């Protein structure tokens, strides 16, 4: 299990990295390598060129400003998960992020890498979608910012062009009175998710004022369910949650060797119930 031959570059500036991405036709960016390297060893991927961005300066910052969180692409997942300032404004990043791989892999794996790799089980991808994050990408020609919902196109497929690099992710502030819930099912402890659900609910005047739900592996990409139309103005009790569950009847999750679509649909229902219930309880605490 050795990778096929490749040319290795280790740029130290963003400009160098972008220049290589522009000039090398069959290049992959190496960040934490926790997904890419095993795939190269299995020769599922045989890139001609590897651009190792670990030495690139300026991509590993985290800032928290008035409830908004900006995370550099090279920030290690474990750094994000253990960052108290981040957890104070966006507890979901700690909760869901702690499901990304294991303690050891999170020390190498990066936030930008997880998002750019767009694995169908990526919890961080789900959080960007749920929290309405934007993803900044750069090429030698331009910089653009994409909404997470427009970024993920399919399993391991994104709106990222071949010459573009993810540079940072911005999470907007959560409204006051917001609570989150995250539940995941996997065959083993913290394995790749068979299915997961992330939910947020904001309470104003004792009822739901906004809500969001994102399901992982219910569809080829993180799937946003329009729960606001069902929950806003209501107390999110069992009846309200069951209305959401009813709306999941038409889900057609993918079947693969890990699970059938039918199983994933059942999991989506269970995890939705739990995530919404937790989000409601947490929102009530946030209000109090």
């Amino acid at each position, binding site marked *: 299990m050795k990778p096929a031959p490749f040319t290795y570059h280790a740029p130290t500036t963003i400009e160098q990295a972008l220049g290589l991405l522009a000039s090398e036709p069959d290049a992959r960016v190496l960040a934490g390598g926790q997904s890419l390297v095993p795939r190269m060893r299995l020769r599922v991927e045989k890139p001609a060129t590897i651009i190792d961005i670990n030495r690139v300066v300026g991509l590993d910052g985290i800032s928290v400003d008035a409830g908004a969180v900006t995370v550099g692409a090279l920030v290690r997942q474990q750094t994000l998960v253990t960052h108290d300032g981040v957890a104070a404004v966006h507890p979901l990043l700690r909760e869901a992020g702690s499901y990304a791989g294991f303690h050891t892999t999170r020390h190498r794996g990066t936030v930008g890498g997880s998002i750019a790799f767009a694995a169908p089980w990526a919890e961080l991808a789900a959080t960007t979608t749920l929290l309405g994050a934007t993803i900044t990408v750069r090429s030698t020609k331009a910089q653009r910012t994409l909404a997470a919902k427009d970024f993920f196109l399919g399993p391991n497929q994104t709106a990222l062009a071949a010459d573009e690099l993810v540079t940072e992710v911005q999470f907007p502030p959560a409204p006051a009175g917001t609570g989150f819930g995250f539940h995941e099912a996997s065959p083993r402890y913290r394995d790749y998710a068979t299915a997961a659900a992330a939910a947020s609910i904001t309470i104003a005047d004792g009822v739901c004022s906004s809500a969001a739900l994102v399901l992982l592996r219910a569809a080829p990409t993180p799937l946003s369910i329009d729960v606001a139309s069902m929950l806003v103005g209501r107390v999110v009790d069992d009846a309200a949650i069951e209305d959401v569950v009813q709306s999941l009847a038409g889900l057609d999750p993918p079947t693969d060797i890990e*699970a059938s679509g039918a199983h994933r649909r059942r999991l989506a229902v*269970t995890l939705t119930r739990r995530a919404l219930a937790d989000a409601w309880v947490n929102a009530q605490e946030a209000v109090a």
Partner: protein
Amino acid sequence: MEIEQDPNASRIAGDTAPGDAGLRWIGKSINRVEDPRFLRGEGRYIDDITLPNMLHAAIKRSPHAHARIKSIDTSKAEALPGVVRVLTGQDVKEHANPLPSFSMNPGIQHDMIAIEKVRHYGECVAVVVAENRYIAEDACDLIEIEYEVLPAVLDPLKAREEGSPLVHEALGKNEAYSRTFSFGEVDKAFDEAARSVTVDLYWPRSTGMPMDTNGAIGDYDAGTGVLTIHANSMNFTYFLWLIAGTLKIPSAKLKIVPVVAGGSFGSKFFMHKVPTFAGWLSLMVGKPVKYIEDRVTHIVNNDHAGSDRRYKAELAFEDDGTFQALRIDCVDDYGAYLQFGVGTHGNALSQICGPYTIDHVEYSLAAVLTNKNQQGAYRGFGAEVSNWILERLVDHAAHDLGMDRVEIRRKNLIQADAFPYRTPTGNIYDSGNYPGVLDKVLADFDYDYWVKYRDDARKEGRHVGIGVVASQERSVFSSTEFWFWFDEPAFSPTSSPESASIQIEPTGQIVVTLHSQAMWGNSPETVVSQVIAEEFDVDPTSVVITYADSQHALPGTGPGGSRYTVMVSGAVAGAASQMKDKIKRIAANKLEAAEGDLEFRDGGVGVKGAPDKQLSLSDIAMMAYMFKLDLPPDMESGLATQWTYDHPLTTLPNADRSDLGMFYPFVGHAWHMAVVEVDPGTGRVEFLRYSAVHDAGTVVNPKTLNGQIIGGTVQGLGTAMLEEYIYDDQGRVLNENFEHYHLPSSMDVPTMTIGHQETPSPYTAYGIKGAGEGGRMLTPAIMSAAVEDALSPYGVRITSLPISAEQIVAWAAGD
């Protein structure tokens, strides 16, 4: 029942008789003497070894389960810079013989590289030898092979039918073996019993997953004609001529050097293909060649897939729960080859009735060949499957009667005064106190508390379940299990011996040489050190242990079938007994004392009751090596002994096979009890309590024994809940790496309490029984029982493994 003791047994037991409370070192939880080098990363595994001018090999694996090889074009691969040689089945055909096999079917030929036809996904079709492994794998991608894809034989039931495509044309059929053994009056017992249960059961194909895959380095010396093979297994040292036969060299010119292995679990048991292959490659290119299985190759190409069995099983019993008879009909999917024949069923027959008094047994087997990786050895060697079958039947009987699962088992336990107990198949259970083990586990587990807890939880809508299972743990195989299947076997049984040599150097250093590959991640050196410490009253960490290469090795069989601790202890005790005799004679002569007044103490030998009359081992050894005139007049110089220890207790089967004889007679006993809570929404299973009590006879080292129990339990958990080869409809393995082949992680494993009862064997040195497989004998049954109990509101009966989360969720949803 009277059984004559092997005269060896008493001799080697020496002055520390079984059950002797005076044991000083045997029974102590010392740290493993192996640990320091491995924990420091200084173990020197096979892939850590580099020889000068060494080349590297990689194999081209078949993408098809069943296909005829129409052509192989190696030209592009050969043209790649750094490639030394590309070899195919044609080269094997011209330069090597088939691989050794204990199968009795001449129509089943297994070669190092497939010749003309591939018979399973991942089978080797070509090999590249190159300057490094990267280039070798690059070149594999350049080999162009034209296949004629044949219909894959995947379903063993269809494979038996007339007209099925054939895995081996020369065999003329896919059913390699079938036979029914009957013991007692089975039909009559079923007719007369008040009740019976019949269950169809399925056990899935999985395999042992050592961290260190199989690997070897061949190093051919053209000058001397000696082929040296460094390999991370070398057991069966008395069978090396088989490997030499494949390589077409004299066995005297074959030298296998054992290298420590990071785990086997059976997958290195008589591991012959990888070392033979590396040796052959070196013969072909004239330089050292390293070949190491990568993980994918280990999963799809190692020769040790576990059992893959479909059963119809029946238990006859009375209204009061008394068991009467057992009828088992098994179709076993052996895969493409049959290296051990049907020995894995011989193993099952050693303890087919478990710890219960069942007098009538019928056992039918059909061994079917399919286009899958061949079966070999995996912890339990088939008896773990039969134990699951039996315990499932017992749970079904309890359910049928509405009887408590502990009580139905207790009612049928063989009683402590019944030993040695002859089972209906002819094997014996040497000793035991099964109700004692049960009482111990009940107290530790607090069964009544958990029954109430479960019932209360159920009222709250929680899904809590209890599992209680018992198991035998047969140990120390006699190889009759491989051949009693046949009326006219091709060979008679070997005694499957084990050897040890002891040398005491002039400095007084004790050196023990072992004669088979023993270091598989287990603790053979700790066992030997504790036995030496016991015999000579020395610090166990002071003992030096070496391994003989095959040219110098005495007969040895190595680990497997939970035999090594028993057998090496017998071998070391035998060599120690001789050594102590000689030391006593020297000391008696020097100290002018009677031999009977001498004792081994404080690293030397002295006169009992006279602390100042003492000689160190160095004093003795100096005389033995250099000062002959200090020795008794009729004694030769030197201080080295060796002992080859044969199986202590084995008998032949009778002619009509209504009695299989004694072939697995040192039989431990264990109970596990567990409480789980199942999340019916996700299928997640959490442990609330797990308690195990084992009786493995005299315990040599509780710490290392607990390690074996925990490891086996974890592997059994994998089989029960997670592991399974997944094939597509063309026979391709879909989960050939750890992303999709799910091993339990440390976070999926219960915290266990482990207790021991010690009922020594009357027939082995110190009364030790083997105990390397016990955990895996129990967990599949306990998980089945506990999850089934937890899901009893849904009326679930668990009849196949693994119990997937998807299945649990489906059951809870009413599917």
